[in-house]
């Protein structure tokens, strides 16, 4: 047995083990959550379910810790490390295959829970196993608490170091963090005293996998897009993990490029033109704003057209990863660099509006449908009131409704109800080509129906709903507010059930 100096009755080697376990847990949690959120698609419900599964994996580890002999714990840890070397290649291929089976949702969530146990249970078991084993040697309450303090501190500091490692790898391909993670795991297996042959084998496999990782990740990601998303011939052009989500650009022959955020398609090249036309170009053409603001639109695809029609344009985007993808695949950054009347702020739109001193003639909100709380906050009555306060006299707020406006209580109607709670005048354009409606909100009519139709109608079928017709459609809709974001759960659940649990033929 290796002996070492002790801190509060705990061997330094044990403290190093716990610190490594803490770091592994932090990095493993990030990798697992990001991978499965991306595989199951990033609604908030999925994010919460995946995070909860990881924590349940920890509980399983804590639960079995007392029953595991040290030798078995070492073996379990070595096995877990070995299994994790197959991640995420085997995970992705497995998920693609499971998604083809009947009851795919059940299988996929079982697949997730299995991963959670492999990722979390063994490293989590180390701390209580160490404390409870030591308890048999010296059982006084003071000694127990002293050992807990030094041991748990080591694990927490390791966890913080793991978080720092994760942050250092933002905006890099997942392969970078994975390679570091495997090094941590092999070191952990070594320090807990797994057999040398096992350690050597794990180190060799990790080294080989690391060398192949970039090609392996691309190939397995394309497998997921082909089988799970049904995108034949999909080619992955970019995949990075930003602080907020996995940002991927996928290209298909004849179909152009598409941006995927946490596995959900955010936009594709074919509908991007229609989206930007109605959301940005139409109001900017009608208003010719001296100052325009666009919140969202991280791909920057609307910037050039808007800047041409505005005195000055300000872009605000939260996620630098999306800006990076936009600049590489959706716009020509050299042309944007030449725009003298454009500025870009990477920050939260709400925060920007709260601290902005200037007023804008046109504010465009180009953010995804409220499928997460963060996105939901940008569709609330409170957010629209913030935007209203920053509009100049005669200014207009332009919002995309994520679907056609109908007389019901669904997302587009609820977004318009939120707008109506703040703005006396809301006019809506429904576009067949964009497959959604767009709302323009103001204090009073900023343009006539005729002028709107004249500018808006380009190779499309559109319906313009004037304020009275808009009001009739949102009669039954409740505004989205900071206290009424149930749509995030309801719509998320609907989508998950429809995607994974609906009976065939539904």
């Amino acid at each position, binding site marked *: 047995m290796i002996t070492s100096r002790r801190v509060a009755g705990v061997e330094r080697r044990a403290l190093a083990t716990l610190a490594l376990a803490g770091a592994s847990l932090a990095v493993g949690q990030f990798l697992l959550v990001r991978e499965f959120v991306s595989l199951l698609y990033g609604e908030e419900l999925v994010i919460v379910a995946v995070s909860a599964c990881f924590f349940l994996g920890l*509980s399983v580890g804590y639960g079995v810790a007392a029953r595991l002999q040290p030798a078995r714990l070492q073996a379990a840890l070595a096995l877990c490390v070995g299994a994790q070397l197959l991640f995420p290649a085997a995970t992705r291929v497995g998920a693609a295959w499971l998604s083809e089976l009947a009851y795919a949702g059940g299988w996929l969530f079982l697949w997730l829970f299995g991963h959670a146990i492999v990722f979390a249970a063994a490293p989590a078991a180390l701390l209580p196993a160490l404390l409870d084993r030591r308890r048999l040697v010296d059982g006084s309450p003071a000694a127990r608490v002293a050992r807990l303090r030094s041991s748990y501190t080591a694990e927490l500091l390791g966890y913080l170091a793991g978080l720092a490692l994760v942050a250092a790898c933002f905006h890099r391909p997942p392969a970078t963090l994975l390679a570091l993670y495997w090094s941590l795991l092999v070191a952990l297996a070594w320090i807990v005293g797994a057999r040398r042959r096992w350690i050597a084998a794990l180190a060799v496999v990790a080294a080989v996998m690391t060398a192949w990782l970039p090609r392996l990740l691309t190939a397995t990601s394309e497998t997921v897009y082909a089988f799970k998303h049904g995108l034949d011939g999909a080619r992955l052009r970019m995949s990075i993990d930003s602080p907020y989500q996995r940002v991927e650009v996928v290209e298909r022959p004849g179909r152009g490029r598409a941006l995927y955020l946490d596995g959900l398609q955010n936009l594709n090249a074919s509908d991007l033109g229609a989206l930007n036309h109605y959301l940005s170009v139409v109001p900017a053409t009608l208003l010719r704003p001296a100052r325009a603001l666009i919140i969202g639109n991280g791909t920057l695809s609307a910037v050039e057209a808007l800047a041409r029609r505005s005195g000055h344009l300000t872009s605000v985007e939260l996620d630098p990863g999306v800006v990076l993808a936009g600049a590489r695949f959706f716009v020509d950054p050299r042309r944007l660099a030449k725009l003298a009347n454009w500025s870009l702020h990477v*920050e939260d739109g709400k925060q920007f509006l709260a*601290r902005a001193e200037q007023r804008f003639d046109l504010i465009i909100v180009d953010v995804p449908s409220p499928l997460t709380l963060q996105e939901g906050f940008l569709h609330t009555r409170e957010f629209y009131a913030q935007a209203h306060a920053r509009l100049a006299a005669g200014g207009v707020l332009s919002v995309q409704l994520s679907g056609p406006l109908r007389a019901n209580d669904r997302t587009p109607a609820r977004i318009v109800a939120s707008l109506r709670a703040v703005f006396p005048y809301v006019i809506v354009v429904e576009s067949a080509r964009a497959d959604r409606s767009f709302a323009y909100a103001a204090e009073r009519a900023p343009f006539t129906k005729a002028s709107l139709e004249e500018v808006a109608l380009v190779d499309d079928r559109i319906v313009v709903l004037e304020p009275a017709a808009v009001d009739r459609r949102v009669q039954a809709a409740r505004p989205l507010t900071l206290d009424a974001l149930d749509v995030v759960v309801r719509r998320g659940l609907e989508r998950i059930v429809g995607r994974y649990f609906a009976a065939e033929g539904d």
Partner: protein
Amino acid sequence: MARRRALALAAATGLHLASLQLGYLLTIQMHLSSGYLSYALVTALWMLGCLIGLWVALPAALAVIAGLASYLVTLVACNLAPFHPSLLWLAIPAVIVSGLWAGRFFCVALARDDGEGASARAFAGENTGFVAGLVGVFLGYALLGRALLLWAPLVTGASVLALLCRRGPALALLGLVLGGCVDEGPSVVPAPDRSLFATQAYPILLRDCGFPGCHGAEERYYQVFGPGRTRLAAPGEPPPGPFDLATPYELARSYDRARAALLTDGDVDDAPLLRKPLEEAGHAGRDVLGRNVYATRDEAGYRALAGWARGLVILEEEAP
């Protein structure tokens, strides 16, 4: 029995910590920023609090109560002054204080429970409670709104205190929770007669309150605009001339602000609009001799305002 109690304390602690942590995250995302730094800051500060809680032997109940109080102060401040730059400086120590119990709990649990597998029990119980809290608070907030972010930590905090002490603080907190649960219904802004406002109250308010340096300014909570005082331009229109008739826009703004200043839990006489201009009330708008707007409730101007607030037509020489 002791093991069950230990497990219950661990689970209640997990629930409580989840409701505090998620409460902080959601509140800060809503009212400060959804940026990654907010998440990183809350996580790092929480862990710092946890480390301090591990090493500093605070009384358990004090750690729970201080953590809860810090959270409530942050919650109230964020809701009262969203996006205020000082909120961050308030949240930093608050999150650390709330994290104290996350560390202190394990010391308490291990000192109390000397049975086989005590650590595993404490960690498993706390973590499982945390998972339940994570899911519950997310669903609760999405379906019930911000009220959940107030009540969930109060209820879970009371449960932890009840399991810790069986008396005193838990009962007090429970009393607070139950007392707060009495539904007094929503406050409704009064809506006294609009046309009576234009003829009876508006001229008085304009005359006595609408000076440019006082309530004839958009920076003030209570505002009144019109002829002879500050003029208010409707969006997209030029401001009216100094002595033009009051515009519908000015009348509407002045009416809305006046009825908002009539909101009160008690009698209408206690509403700010009718209380602040009186001699005995605190009011910055006193003249050079230190006199408030009205010496008594019998003054004609005051009676015109109070009459409008109660829906009464006051036939006075001063009320036009």
